[in-house]
């Protein structure tokens, strides 16, 4: 996940330095966030720069080729959050930090019990904004372990919008449909 000071120019420069060429520009829509796709000359690897407005972050994803090496190279070239930065953020005193921490958690692959705990903590947060962020994060990895927190919001949250959104995630968990 890129830090806010990773400008579009910095991304372009890093991609150019890594021999990536811009190969697609996708506008955001209902089904997907806006994204830039860069490809290596031989077409064997693609780098996705995804502007995720729901989570409020921009992140990089590499597919194909030696993706770990490519990712490491781009991480060196661009200001990024570290792989464990979220741990401190989810317990930080400020709402903004906790919201960012939950966004980073949402993108943890694979999800784990620890991830579930962080998300459950967010779903039970005193701040409605943090709960909303946790709810969004839950939709990225909707797992049954999150049901207690989700149902608590669905049936008891003071915010109608959150109750409705939680109901949709719960329903998706039961039916296997999209959250």
């Amino acid at each position, binding site marked *: 996940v890129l830090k806010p000071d990773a400008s*579009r*120019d910095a991304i*372009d*420069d890093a991609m*150019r330095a890594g021999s990536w*060429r*811009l*190969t*697609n*520009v*996708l*506008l955001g829509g209902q089904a997907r966030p806006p994204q830039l796709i860069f490809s290596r000359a031989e077409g064997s690897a693609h780098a996705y720069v995804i502007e995720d407005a729901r989570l409020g972050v921009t992140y990089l994803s590499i597919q194909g080729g030696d993706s770990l090496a490519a990712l490491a190279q781009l991480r060196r070239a661009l200001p990024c959050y570290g792989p464990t930065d979220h741990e401190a953020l989810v317990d930080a005193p400020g709402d903004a930090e906790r919201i960012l921490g939950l966004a980073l958690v949402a993108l943890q692959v694979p999800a784990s019990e620890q991830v579930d705990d962080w998300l459950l903590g967010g779903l039970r947060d005193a701040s409605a904004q943090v709960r909303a962020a946790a709810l969004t994060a839950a939709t990225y990895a909707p797992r049954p372990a999150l049901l207690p927190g989700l149902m608590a919001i669905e049936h008891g949250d003071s915010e109608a919008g959150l109750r409705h959104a939680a109901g949709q995630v719960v329903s998706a968990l039961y039916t296997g449909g999209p959250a």
Partner: protein
Amino acid sequence: MTTLPYRPRLAEQGLLRRHLVDGELKLLLHDTRVGEALELTPDQLEQLLACDGTRDLGGVLLAAARRGAYRRASDIETLITELAARGLMADGTAPPHPVLDHPDDARPEPAERPIEVLEGYGLHCDGNGSCCTTYASVPFTRAERRRALAAMPEVAERLGERVFLPLYGSTEGNHSSVAMVNGACAMLGEDGHCGVHARAGAAAKPRGCWSYPAQYVDDGEAVRVSVAAECRCVMASAGREGGEPLVPAAVERAGQLVPGTRIAALPEEVVVSGARRAPRARLRAFTKRALALPTSDGIASLWGFADAVERDGLDAALEPDPSPPPAAAMGYLLLSLAARTADNRLTVAGWRSERDRARRLAEWLDDAAQLLLEPAIQRDRLAGPDMLVEQERFFVRACLHGYQLGIGQRSVVQGLRDRAIRLLLARQLANTDPGVAADDPSVAYPITAVEVAMRGQGLASYASVG
């Protein structure tokens, strides 16, 4: 704040041109509305060519990337934003060009219209190629491009990609303009003759070249054929016997002209002056009456016609050989002209080679235009045409017969006064040291220097004031 076009394209007043100046590549964007030339990098040229009006910004970025001209999205966005702020960007695809983009079978050809050729005129071309060394644009169609490159493959070898760029704007269509080498058409051979003509024959040349200097105008009743007084040969041919006819003698109707001949059309209604308009038939009748009058002082005649038309419209009584106008009447036009020639001199000095004819002419013209701001010099020049009397007589005839009054851009009155000012500038050129242009073919025919710069260097925009 400038709004970025959704699907940007370079507007039609923007001309992308490639010049080789003393061996150095120069990529220019000419803004024909203000007469400026902006220098571009090769990446910027490719980025602008990607702006063809069919792509949104994302598509432009992708097209630029495919051409190897993408570094930063912000560079491209800034380029488009800055050009949009200058009024040089448009949105969506370009509308068809009123003359160039009409296929021959779709254009309402005046096939039955009689041809009216400038009487008694035959062209004696001396082949010195000055017409190939002056214009900023030498247009080619796709087919002409192919023929020219087949005849002159070394041009592509020398210049690499992009020997041709869109004739106007950034849309790569049927018409393009060839790269220039030290201000001359890239197809001009080292001997000063057209390489395409030499190797593949006259018919292989672009249409604009082989029909030069003839100009065709459909006025609704006939197609008049006149000449642009932009080349020494054109003026030197006036009054001479023989020469190449502008149209073969057997051609009596427009339908018999070589297919694809570009015929401009007068608008059904012309602007006479201010809000006054008239059907084009009245302009035709006016020019016929004016052409029948004797001309011993071109400026006096043209200015006198303008005064009469401004007062009483196109049916005004026309005075034969009127008195020259007072210098004060020309003041604002001369100021505008001097400002325009000064700008042009600076602009061309910024990128054209010192050997470039257009640069040498720009200096000479500017010297003359600045001198004309002196009231005493104005009075002297207005006193009479001196040795230019025959040239002025022919110029007035060619202009009136060919409707060379900028119809469509300005009123008839403005057009007549503009031509009078051009003659005044020509008189001053004849009295100004040509300096670096001393060996230029136009020295003996100064009106050709004025005319070629008016069109080729965009000086004509001076007349758009007031």
